[in-house]
C-alpha cells in the first residue's frame, strides 16, 4: 500500500513539474535526424594533386580520429555523426502553414548554469528547409534520367555536359584518372548507377554532411571568455584580477582610448592589438578533450557523447543532478526514468521527446534583385515559462536576437552570402563584360571559355544550341551554380570571446556606442553581484552565440560574423535630418556630431543626458508641427 502511495505521488509530482508552455504549442520534435555535424567537404581531384582523393568518412572510427588530434584543432577536421538516409519516397513540396507541423532541428545548448533544449524551425523561401535540397535532387534526377526514366551511370553522368564542368560548383574532372576517382567517390554502393541517395553528396561535395542542415560547435573560449576578456584586461588597470571602484569610474576614458578612428563606436576588433590572422570573429577552433558547446539531438545522435558532455560540463564527470543545473533542473525529472534523481547514460536519449525550452524560427529567402530579395530573419516562436522573464527583455532585431540568462548572455543571428541576394546584377555585369559588340548575345568568338568563374565550353552554356548565348542562359548557369548553396543551412555555436564586451553592449547590436561607453560604470556596478566594488571575472556572465548561415562553405568564417544593427535604420519615423546627423549610426546624436550651435543642442536634449535621442528628435518635430 505504501509502495502504491509512493508511486502515485511520484507520478503526480512528475506531472506537476513538467515545463509549462508560455506561448503556442511548439512543433513536434524532429521526425528524422536529417542533420549532422559535418565531415570535411570532398576535395576536387585537382586540389589534391599529390594525395589520394578523400574517401567517405568512416564514422566508426570518428571518435578515435578525434582523440588523436592536437589539443586545439580546426573544426574542419572533426566530425561526429553519420550521414543519414535520404527518404526514398517522393518528397511533398507544400508551403508550411502551421509551425507545429514544420520540420525542425533540435539541439542542446550547454549554457553555464544548465542545458537548454532548443528547437529551430528552418525555412527556405517559406517552405520547409528540407524541400530545397530534395527539389534539387529531383530536378537533377529528371535531367539525367530523361523522359524514359532510365537510370544513368556515374560514368555517364560525369560525362554529361550538364554536369561535366562543375556547373553545380562541384567537381570538374580534367582527365580519365580523375573521372575514375570521382566515380569511386560517389558511387557509394558500387553499383555504377546514380542513386537518389548518392546524389546529395555529389551535389554538395559533402559540405554539411550533404544534409540540408548541419551544426558545428566551437568550445575554444569555453570558460575563458570572462577571465581572458580583452575588455576586462583593459579596464583592470592594475591587473589585480578585479575591476575596482576607481577602475569602474575610469572605464569610459579607457574604452575611448581604443577608438582608433575616433568615431565614438567600438567593436570587438578595437580591443585586439596584434593581428591574428585566420582567426574569425566567431571561433572555429575546438579543444579536443573538452565537450562541445552545442549538440544536435536526433535519431543518429551519439548519445554516449551527449552523456559525456553533460557530465563534464555540469558535474565534473559524474552523473548530473538537479543541483548541478540550476537553470533547467526540471530536465533531471523529465529524463529520470529510474527515479534516482540523476541523469544516467541511457536516459539522455529521452531528450528527443521532451518539450523544448525555446523554439526559434530561422528563415532564408531566394531573391534575384534588390526588389525581390529579402534578408534572412530569426525570431522567437515560443518559450518555456522559466525563460519568460529573460525573453521579456530580449533584444530582437530582424537578423539577430539576444537575451540574458543567469550566468550567460545568449545571442542568435542569421547571415548569408550577399551574392545570393542580387543575382540579376551579377549576371548583367558579367554578361556586359563579355558582350564586346553589345548586340545582346555572345557568339563563340566573344566567349573566352569562362563565365562566373566556371570553365565551361560555349556549347554547354548554349542551352538551346542556337549558337548564341543570351543573358538568360548565363543567368541559368548562375542559378544552377548557386542551387546547392541555397539549399543548405549551416550553424555554428560558440562561446564568444569577450563576455564583458557583450555585457556592456546593452542594446545587443555588436557595438559599444558612446551612450554605452559612458554608461559602463553603472553596468560594471550592476555586474558586481556582491557589491564589494571588486568586479571579479566569475561575476561577469558568460556569452554564447549561435549563427545560422547560408553561402559557400569556404566563406563561413566571413559569414559567421555577428551582424551589427543600426538602431536608426530600424525606426522609419525618425526624421531624415536626425539620421543624416547621426554620422556613426548609433541611434544618438552626440555633441560632437551635432551640426548646430550648442544652445540648440541643449534645447533638443530635453532629458539632459548629453545625447539627442531619436525620441527627442521626434518630439521636436511634433512640437514644430503643432
Amino acid at each position, binding site marked *: 500500500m505504501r509502495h502504491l502511495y509512493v508511486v502515485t505521488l511520484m507520478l503526480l509530482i512528475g506531472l506537476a513539474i513538467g515545463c509549462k508552455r508560455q506561448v503556442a504549442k511548439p512543433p513536434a520534435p524532429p521526425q528524422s535526424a536529417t542533420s549532422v555535424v559535418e565531415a570535411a567537404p570532398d576535395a576536387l581531384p585537382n586540389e589534391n594533386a599529390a594525395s589520394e582523393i578523400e574517401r567517405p568518412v568512416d564514422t566508426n572510427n570518428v571518435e578515435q580520429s578525434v582523440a588523436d588530434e592536437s589539443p586545439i584543432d580546426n573544426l574542419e577536421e572533426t566530425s561526429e555523426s553519420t550521414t543519414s538516409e535520404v527518404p526514398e519516397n517522393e518528397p511533398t513540396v507544400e508551403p508550411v502553414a502551421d509551425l507545429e507541423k514544420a520540420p525542425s532541428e533540435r539541439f542542446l545548448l550547454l549554457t553555464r548554469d544548465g542545458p537548454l533544449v532548443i528547437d529551430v524551425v528552418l525555412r527556405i523561401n517559406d517552405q520547409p528547409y528540407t524541400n530545397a535540397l530534395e527539389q534539387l535532387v529531383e530536378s537533377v534526377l529528371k535531367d539525367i534520367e530523361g523522359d524514359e526514366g532510365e537510370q544513368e551511370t556515374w560514368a555517364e553522368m560525369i560525362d554529361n555536359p550538364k554536369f561535366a564542368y562543375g556547373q553545380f560548383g562541384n567537381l570538374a574532372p580534367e582527365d580519365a584518372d580523375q573521372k575514375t576517382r570521382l566515380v569511386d567517390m560517389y558511387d557509394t554502393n558500387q553499383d555504377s548507377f546514380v542513386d537518389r541517395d548518392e546524389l546529395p553528396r555529389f551535389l554538395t561535395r559533402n559540405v554539411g554532411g550533404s544534409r540540408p542542415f548541419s551544426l558545428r560547435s566551437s568550445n575554444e573560449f569555453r570558460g575563458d571568455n570572462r577571465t581572458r576578456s580583452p575588455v576586462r584586461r583593459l579596464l583592470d588597470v592594475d591587473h589585480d584580477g578585479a575591476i575596482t571602484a576607481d577602475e569602474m569610474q575610469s572605464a569610459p576614458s579607457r574604452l575611448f582610448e581604443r577608438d582608433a578612428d575616433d568615431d565614438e563606436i567600438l567593436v570587438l576588433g578595437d580591443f585586439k592589438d596584434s*593581428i591574428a*590572422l585566420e*582567426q574569425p570573429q566567431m571561433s572555429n577552433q575546438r579543444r579536443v578533450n573538452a565537450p562541445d558547446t552545442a549538440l544536435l539531438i536526433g535519431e543518429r545522435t551519439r548519445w554516449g557523447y551527449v552523456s559525456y558532455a553533460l557530465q563534464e560540463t555540469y558535474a565534473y564527470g559524474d552523473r548530473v543532478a538537479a543541483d548541478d543545473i540550476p537553470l533547467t533542473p526540471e530536465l533531471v525529472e523529465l529524463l529520470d526514468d529510474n527515479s534516482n534523481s540523476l541523469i544516467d547514460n541511457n536516459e539522455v536519449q529521452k531528450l528527443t521527446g521532451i518539450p523544448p525550452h525555446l523554439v526559434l524560427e530561422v528563415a532564408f529567402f531566394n531573391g534575384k534583385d534588390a526588389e525581390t530579395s529579402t534578408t534572412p530573419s530569426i525570431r522567437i516562436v515560443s518559450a518555456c515559462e522559466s525563460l519568460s522573464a529573460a525573453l521579456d527583455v530580449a533584444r530582437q532585431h530582424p537578423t539577430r536576437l539576444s537575451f540574458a540568462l543567469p550566468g550567460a548572455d545568449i545571442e542568435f543571428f542569421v547571415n548569408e552570402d550577399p551574392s545570393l541576394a542580387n543575382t540579376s546584377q551579377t549576371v548583367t555585369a558579367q554578361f556586359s563584360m563579355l558582350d564586346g559588340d553589345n548586340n545582346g548575345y555572345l557568339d563563340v568568338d566573344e566567349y573566352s571559355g569562362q563565365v562566373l568563374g566556371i570553365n565551361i565550353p560555349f556549347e554547354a552554356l548554349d542551352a538551346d544550341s542556337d549558337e548564341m548565348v543570351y543573358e538568360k542562359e548565363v543567368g541559368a548557369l548562375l542559378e544552377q551554380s548557386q542551387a546547392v548553396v541555397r539549399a543548405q543551412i549551416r550553424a555554428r555555436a560558440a562561446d564568444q570571446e569577450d563576455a564583458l564586451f557583450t555585457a556592456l553592449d546593452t542594446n545587443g547590436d555588436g557595438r559599444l556606442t558612446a551612450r554605452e561607453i559612458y554608461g559602463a560604470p553603472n553596468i560594471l556596478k550592476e555586474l558586481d553581484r556582491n557589491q564589494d566594488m571588486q568586479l571579479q571575472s566569475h561575476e561577469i556572465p558568460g556569452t554564447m552565440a549561435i549563427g545560422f548561415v547560408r553561402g559557400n562553405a569556404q566563406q563561413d568564417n566571413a559569414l559567421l560574423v555577428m551582424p551589427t544593427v543600426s538602431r536608426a535604420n530600424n525606426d522609419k519615423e525618425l526624421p531624415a535630418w536626425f539620421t543624416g*546627423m547621426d554620422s556613426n549610426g548609433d541611434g544618438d546624436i552626440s555633441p*560632437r556630431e551635432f551640426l*548646430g*550651435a550648442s544652445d540648440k543642442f541643449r534645447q533638443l536634449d530635453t532629458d539632459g543626458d548629453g545625447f539627442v535621442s531619436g525620441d527627442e528628435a521626434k518630439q521636436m518635430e511634433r512640437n514644430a508641427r503643432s
Partner: protein
Amino acid sequence: MIRFGTVTLSIVFVGLSLSASADDSINERRAEMIARIDTLLSEQWAAEEIQPANRSNDSEFARRVYLDLTGVIPRVAEIREFLEDERADKRNRLIQRLLASPRYPTHLANTWRQVMLPGGLDLEQLQNVAGVQNWLRKQFAQNMRYDRIVSDFLVATGGGEAGPALYYTSLEVKPEKLAASTARIFLGLQIECAECHPHPFDHWKQEDFWGYAAFFAQLEQSENRRGPANVGLVDLDSGEVTLPDSETIVPPRYPDGNLVTAAAGGSRRVQLAIWMASRDNPYLAKAAVNRMWAHLFGRGLIEPVDDIGKHNPPSHPELFQALTAYFVDTGFDIKELLRTLTSTNAYQLSSRLDREPHAQELFANMAIKTMTAEQLYDSLNRIAGGRPANIPNFFAIRSNLFDQQRLAFIGKMRMQGSNATEFDAGVLQALTLLNGSNINAASQADQSGVLMALDSPLFSPEERLKSLFLGTLSRRPTADESTAFVAHVSDSNEPREAMGDVLWALLNSAEFALNH
C-alpha cells in the same frame, strides 16, 4: 595616533609637492625650448632681413594642428567650440587635447607605417601592413620612449609582436635590405649607396654598409604551420655577410665605426638594439627630431630627411643641436616633442603671405602641405557623414586598412613624390575629386548625410552655410561668400540640391584639399 596621522599627511603632502614640482619642471623646460626655437629662427630672419608671415588665425591654426596631430579636419562642433573659446591659452589646450585623442596614435602609426613600408598598399600584403600599423599604434598610444620603440622593433620575433616581425618578412629577411631600410628610417642615413661602392657624397664605404648589414645576417623566418601571416623570426648562432663578389666576411660594425666587442652578449640584433638606444648613437635622436620637424613644417631641418651627414648640413645647426639634446633629455618623448613644436610661434605662423614667398628652409611662413590620401579620405568622410559601421572582413582586428572603399580612394589619390609641399596630382586625382563616389556621396542631395542633416528646421539658411564652411574649411564664410551662397540656395527651385552644389564646390577647392 595623532603622530601617525601627521606623518601620513606629511608624506602625502611631500609626494604631491614633488609631483607638482616635476610638472612645473617639465613645463618650464618646454617653455624654454619653445622660446629658444622661436629666438633662433627670429635671429636668422633678422639677419636675412626677412619679415615673417603674420600669426595664423584660429581657423588656420585649428585645421592645421588637427591634420598634423590626428590626420583629419575638425568636426563642425569641434571647430565651432574652438572658435568661440575666448581663453588666452586655448591653442595650448587644443594641442593637449589632440595629443590625448585616440586618433593621435592612429595617425602617427599611419605616418610611420608609410615610412617603414613605402610604395603604397600592396593588397596582397595588406594583413602584414595592418599588423605593423597596429603594433605601432600601441606603442604611440602608450607614449613609449622612441628609443625603446626602435629597440623593440629591432628585436621583434613575432608572436604577440607580429607587427614588427612582419616588417622583416616584407624585406625578405635579407640583411642588405634590412640594413638599408633601418638605416634610412631610424638613423636618417642613406647608406645603401655604399652597398656596391663607396658612397658618392658621404664617407660610407662598402665595409661600413656590410658591417651594418651583418647585424641582420643571423636571422631567419621560422616555420609556422598556422599560416604564412603568423610570422616568426629566429635568431641564429651563425650567418655572415661578405662583400659583393668576394669571399671576404664582414664582421658586424656599428655605423659609428666601432666593432662589436667580444664581451657584448645576446644576438646580433640585440647588440644593435642596445647601441641604437645608447648615447653612443648620434643618429637616432637627430633622425627622429628631423622627421617630426618635417612632419609639422613640411620640410626637415635637413632635407631629404633620411640623408643626414656632413655633406648635407642642417639649415639651422644650433637649433637642430638644441632640439636634439632636448629630445634626449626629455626621454625620447615623441608626444612632448610634438607638443613643444606645435606650441612655437613658428608653427603657428600663417601660410598666407602678401609678398614673394621666402625660401622654405627659413620657415618664415608655414609651408602649404598636401593632404595625404588618407587625410583626404578621412576628412571627406567626416563631412560626408558616416562610414560603414562594420568593415566587412572577418579578421580579428579592426583596421581601416581593410576598408575597401578607402583603399580604392587611396590607390587613386596617392601622390608619387615624397615632398609634402609639392602637389603631384594628375588627371586621375582630379577626376576622383570632381566625380568620385566619395564626393558624390557627400554632395548629392539624395545620398548625403550632411545635406539631410542640414535640411532640419533647426537651421536658418545662414546657419546651414556656416556649418558647411566650418565642416569643410574650418572657418566661417566671409560676408561676400555668405551673401553669394545663400542667394544661390534661396533662388533655387531645389534648395537641397543647390546646397549640394555649394558643398561640392567647397570640397573641390584648393583650400579644402591642402593643409595650410
